[in-house]
């Protein structure tokens, strides 16, 4: 008696191995208690969204506040710079005006100074050993 045709077909090794069959793989069935814990461990979508949005809003507001604060500080420094520049300029103007020849001459005259009638520039020899005693 011939063997049945089915036996003539070589069996698929993957199918033949029951251990490779997913259905045969042992699957741990989560207990109801575990399912509750998993749901509690993952925050709901709306909570995540709220946290992210809040963080972004707080961040943006903070950055904006910092920018405004820096702007105010920049303005204050600019004003300080302007004030110091004004002061420096005023002092420079005062010095230039005070050293003007007309002012110096007026002061000298007031102090009784006069232009010398006779001026002679002479060169003193560098070797002055013969001079004096």
């Amino acid at each position: 008696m011939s063997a049945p045709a089915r036996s003539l077909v070589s069996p698929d090794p993957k199918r033949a191995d029951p251990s490779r069959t997913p259905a045969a793989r042992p699957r741990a069935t989560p207990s109801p208690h575990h399912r509750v814990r998993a749901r509690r461990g993952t925050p709901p979508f709306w909570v995540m969204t709220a946290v992210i949005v809040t963080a972004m809003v707080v961040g943006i507001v903070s950055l904006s506040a910092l920018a405004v604060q820096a702007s105010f500080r920049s303005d204050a420094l600019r004003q300080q710079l302007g004030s110091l520049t004004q002061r420096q300029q005023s002092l420079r103007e005062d010095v230039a005006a005070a050293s003007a020849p007309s002012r110096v001459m007026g002061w000298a005259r007031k102090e009784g100074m006069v232009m010398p009638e006779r001026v002679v520039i002479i060169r003193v020899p560098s070797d002055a050993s013969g001079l004096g005693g």
Partner: protein
Amino acid sequence: MKRPPVHRLVVLLVAVVLAIGGIVIRLAVLQVRESGTYAELGSTQRVHTEPLPALRGEILDRTGVPMALTLDARDVYVNPSLVVDAATEAGQIAPVLGLKEKDVRAALSSPGTFAYIERQVDLGVAQHVADLHLPGIGLLPVVKRYYPAGPVAPQVLGFVNVDGVGTTGLERQYDQLLAGSPGERTVELSAQGQEIGGGREVVQDPQPGSSVVLTIDRDLQFQAQQYLQKAVRENHAKGGTIVVLDPHTGDVYAMASYPWFDPNSFASFDSTRFVNRAVTDTWEPGSVNKTITAAAALESGAVTPTERFHVPGTRQVEGYTIHDAEPHGMETMTLGDIIAHSSNVGASLVADRTGNRRMEETFARFGYGTPTGIGFPGEAAGLMPPAPWSHLTRATVSFGAGVAVTPLQMASVYATIANGGTWVQPRLVDATIGPDGVRHDAAPPVTRRVLRPSTTQTLTQMLAYVVQDGTGVSAQIPGYQVAGKTGTAKKLDASGHYVSKYVASFIGFLPASRPRVVVAVIIDEPRTVFGGVAAAPVFQEVARYAIQRLGIEAAPAVPLPPHAMPVP
């Protein structure tokens, strides 16, 4: 319930689709095709760009002392459309700015959206205006020029106009160099015109201008002006000009014309005072020109220092009578005597001996008829009579009539004699200093050989003779030998005819044997016409100050030239 006809629904649907389609198309047009236009429109309403003026470079004297500074200032303006109460605001602003209330009110009430109230206001005053917080009033950052010494070398420096543009003098000549490049600041403004904190701000810094270092010595300039002013007043003259320069380098130490002006308030002076007459105006030099006649005669060998001339009191040339200032009979004179006693007749005899060609060549070599190239706007070239010269032209030119030169040209002639015979181009600018602080020295002056050193030595002896025993004794300075020449010239009227008005002059240098400084003094229409009386004392005072200012050492005296006339 009866259903509406289908065609009505279709019509409604089409209408709705068309309406929505129109809106979509319009949105597309606004957002895509015309987005740039609207963005720009919004930007112009919100974004404000203000110019940042460049700091104009300084003008310094040769020692580094500032003669022209640039200060920050503010223009005060008004937007009349924003003014609420013109009368009240004018009453508050006018006393702060020192203006008349009605003038301010007129500006506040003017049509349009912009009007200046006051320009170039000091920062302190501007702050007071800002503190008033008046609607419509604003401040624009600008700069203003300040001349700390006031009217010292005003015609040389010139001034800048209210827009900061150099208008006269070196301010004009070097305007591009001094001005720098303006910058700008772009900011975003709120609807109230306030800057938006944290808004966009783009600053393009202005590029400051370069500074210019002059050859002018501020103190010497000031003293020269003082003495010139005194002389003009004492001689009841119309005006005067002075030039002080270094004969070796061509450096101009001082240059001024009286009357002058204060560049800080130039608008309150007549514009005739702005002219630097030492460079831009010419005059008939008169007897100071005889030095060139002598130079031509000696250089060409036509006349020797020992040669004697028989000089009559008068002489006829082509129907015209030439005479000396003081009447005299026949005199025996050397060339030195002719120069020392300033004989017109003698000079014409020397010119005859020298000849036209040699005379013309010598005058041309000294730069007559050509600007010196000092680098000053409007420099005059002077006038030389066209060749060929007649006998009369040669005679008159020999004593300084019929030619015209600038005071600077004539000072350069004497500098040439003082330095041994080399013409040195005079200069006013020693260097420039870039915004980076790096100094760039000016190019060395142009020079050319005019006379042999032996000729200048003989001329120097003759000029020393002028001051020791001739017409220039008022220029003597104890301890120093001065060489110089007096001049008196008649003035011409507008039609070219001589009138009874004179220009007196004295040009000289010291010490005669080792010259350090040349001083040219020209007094316009003095009561006493002689250069030896009106101008020589000014030379003496200025040169005496120059001795101490420049530390000029005394030097051995040169001998007097051969002379036939008795020396007292």
